[in-house]
C-alpha cells in the first residue's frame, strides 16, 4: 500500500462496524493502534511500505468488540466514522476512536489479503 505524497490513495477496503462495550465506566473497542504521522514508520511491523505513516491495528483483544466485528491484526485503518486516518497523528487517531458520546464506530480498513482476494475473484470471471 505505497503512496505518493499529494496523490490520491486507493485501496480495497472493508467496512467494519464496532460497537463499543461498556467496561465499568469506560467504553472500549478492544484493540490497539500504532502509527501516525508523528511516529517513526520504520518501526511498524505490519506495514508493507516502511514509509507508511498510517494507523495500524497492532493488537486485537480476544473476544472483544473489535474481533467480533471482524477487525484483524495488522489492518490499516483508513477512516473512522468518516474521519480520515491516513494522515493523522497518533493521538488524533486515538481521539477519533474514543469519543465518549459515540458508541458505534464505523471503520474502513484495508489489508493485503483483501486486495488479493478481490484480484483472485476477478480473475475467476
Amino acid at each position, binding site marked *: 500500500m505505497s503512496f505518493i505524497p*499529494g496523490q490520491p490513495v486507493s485501496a480495497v477496503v472493508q467496512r467494519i462496524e464496532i460497537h463499543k462495550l461498556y467496561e465499568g465506566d469506560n467504553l*472500549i473497542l478492544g484493540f490497539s493502534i500504532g502509527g501516525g504521522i508523528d511516529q517513526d514508520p520504520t518501526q511498524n*511491523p505490519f506495514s508493507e511500505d516502511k514509509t507508511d505513516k498510517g494507523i495500524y491495528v497492532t493488537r486485537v483483544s*480476544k473476544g472483544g468488540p473489535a474481533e467480533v466485528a471482524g477487525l484483524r491484526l495488522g489492518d490499516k485503518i483508513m477512516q473512522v466514522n468518516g474521519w480520515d486516518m491516513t494522515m493523522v497523528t497518533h493521538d488524533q487517531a486515538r481521539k477519533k476512536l474514543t469519543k465518549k458520546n459515540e458508541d458505534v464506530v464505523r471503520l474502513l480498513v484495508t489489508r493485503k489479503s483483501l486486495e488479493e482476494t478481490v484480484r483472485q475473484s476477478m480473475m475467476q470471471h
Partner: protein
Amino acid sequence: MNNTKNQRDSDIQKKIDYEIRMREGACKLLAACSQRDQALEASKSLLTCNARIMAYMSELQRMKEAQVMQRVARRSSDAGPMDDRSPCKGKVAISDLRIPLMWKDTDYFKNKGELHRCAVFCLLQLGGEIFDTDMVMVDRTLTDICFDNTIVFNEAGPGFELRVELYSCCSEEDYSAGSTPRKLASKLSSSLGRSAGKKMRAALEPGACSATSNGGGATILLPVPSVQGPKYHLLAHTTLSLSHVQDSFRTHDLTITGNEECSYWLPLYGGVCCRLAAQPHCMTQQMMSGCLRVKLGGEPQGWTNVYGVLKGTNLFCYHQKEDMEAKVEPVLTIGINKETRIRAAEKDPHSKAQNICITNQYGGEEVTHTLAADSREDTQRWMEAFWQQFFDMSQWRQCCDDLMKIELPSPRKPAIVTPKQGSLYHEMVIDKSDDIGTVTDILARRIEEFELRAQLGSPPHWMALFDEDPPHTPQHLPPHSPSPRLHSRQPRSPRCQRTPGLLSSNASLTSDSDSPASVSPCFRQAWSPVASSSSGRFRPRTLSLDAKLSTLRGRGYNGFRCNCQPPTASSVSPRPTQTALSCSSSTSSSSSSEGSNSQESDLGFSRPSGARRSLRILRAKLDPRNWLQSQV
C-alpha cells in the same frame, strides 16, 4: 608467434560467443518478465553484454591490424632493436564508489511531484575488461548513490584508462486502480521540448548497441536485437588513470551528459568519490630469484652464499631457497627503491664476473652491498632484472612506494533486507492471519533459546500476555479476567525505558520491590511481580508484545516498543493528570472530553508519586524512537 596470436584470436572469439549467448538470454528474459525490477536487471545485463561484445570485437580488430602491420614491417625492413622496455602489468581495483546527489529543496518538499525514481548502475571499463556494478534505485530520499562493489581489473598497464560510466533509467512506479490521472500527470511532466526531444531520440537510437563493422577479417556483423523494456541512458562518465591512484578515497570530477529534461536525469553534484588502488606485479610477484653471493663484513673474502629474491621494493636474501618457501626471515634485506643506485663494479680479479654494488641511503648514511652472481650470464640477468624493476617503478610511480591493499570481493553476498530492523519482533514473520497463539509458540521457542528461564528462575511473566488461562501461570500472577478486555494491559509507561541507564529510575516503580537481580536490566523493566501489589484484584500485568520482545533481546533502542500511554491508576485515579501528560496533543486541557478511557485500569498496583510518573510518561512520549501504541 602465430600460434599465440591464433590462440588469442580464438579466446576472444569464444568470449564473444559467450557474450552473444548471454545477450540472447537477457533479451529473452526482458521480453518475458513482468516485474519492473526484473526488467531493469535484465536491461542492465543486456547493456553490459553489448559493451563487452563491442570491446572484444574492437580488440579483435586491433589484433588483426597489428598482425597486418607486423607483416608489413617485417617485409619492409628489419625492425629496430626491441629496446623498448615494457613495464610490468598490475592489478587495479576500484571500490566504494559514491556519487553525491544535489536535490533542490523544492524537489524535496514538492507535494505534487511523483516520487521520481531512477535505477542506476555503473559500468567500468579498463582495457578489454568490462564490469558492471549492482543496480541501485535512487529517489529523493537518497543523498548519495553508493555502490558497494569492489571491481578488480587484472592485467592493467601503468598507462591504463579506467572509464567509469553511470547509466540511469527512469523507473515509474506501478500502481493499481486509479492510476490514470497519475499516468497523465507523469506524462505531462516528463514531456520534452522539441530540441530536447530530438536529443532524446538520437540517444535512443540503438547506435550504441550496434556491432561495429570492421574493415576486414572474419568478424560477424551482429544483428542488433530491438528489445522492449527499460532502456538505460548514459548520465555521467569520467576516466581515471594512474595519476588518480591513491591508497585512500579521492574525489574525481564527473562529466555529466544529459540535462534536466531527460527522464533519466538525476541531480548529480558533479563528482564521484572512490578508492582506486593499484598493485603492480613488480610489487606482488617475484621478479627475479637466484643464487647470489654477498660480501658481508669488511673482509675481502667474506662472501656468503644466499638465495636472493627480488620482490617489490626489496631484495630478500635467504640462506637457501627452502627458507623462502618456509617463510623464514631472510638473512639480509636490501632495499631496492627509487633512491637506490646499482652499478656493476670493476671486474674483480678473483671472480669471473662483475660485482654488483647496491647503494642505499639509510638515514644519513650510505650503505653499499656488494653482490656477485655465479656467472656472467647470471650477473647480466640480475642487472637486467634490476633495470626492469627500476623501469617499472618509474612507470607505476606512486604505486610502488607501498603495497596498496586490494580486498577481493567476497564471492556471494546474500541479499540484505531490512537493515534497519534489529528487534526480535522483526525477525518473526507474523502472517496477518496468524492468531496470537501462533505468536505465543514462536515466543516460547525463542525463550528457550535465550534461556531466560534460567536467568529468571521462573517462566517469563509475559507469557501470560497471550492466554486467558496461561498454561504456565506464574504463581504470583493469577490471571484474572473480569472482562473481555483481558490481556495486554498497557504497560506502565515509565517502565518502558529506552536505555538501561534510565531504567534504574524506573525500577522504583512497582518493580523495585523484587526484580530478580540476575535479570538483565532490560528485562527488569518488563515485569514487576504482582506480589508487590497490595490489593487483591489482579490483572496480569503485561507489556505489549513488542516491548516484551525487545526486552528479550536486551535491546534498548531498536525495536523498542512500548505503550506509553499513562495507565489509569485506579478508578479513582485522576483522569486529568494523565491527559495533561498527553504531550502529543496540543490541547492541554485537562478535560478529557474525548474520554481517555483508553487507559487500562491497572488496579491493585502500588503507584509511585504522580509527579514522578508523569515526568516519566512525558519523557517516554516525547522520545521519538518509541513507536506509540494506544489501546482503544
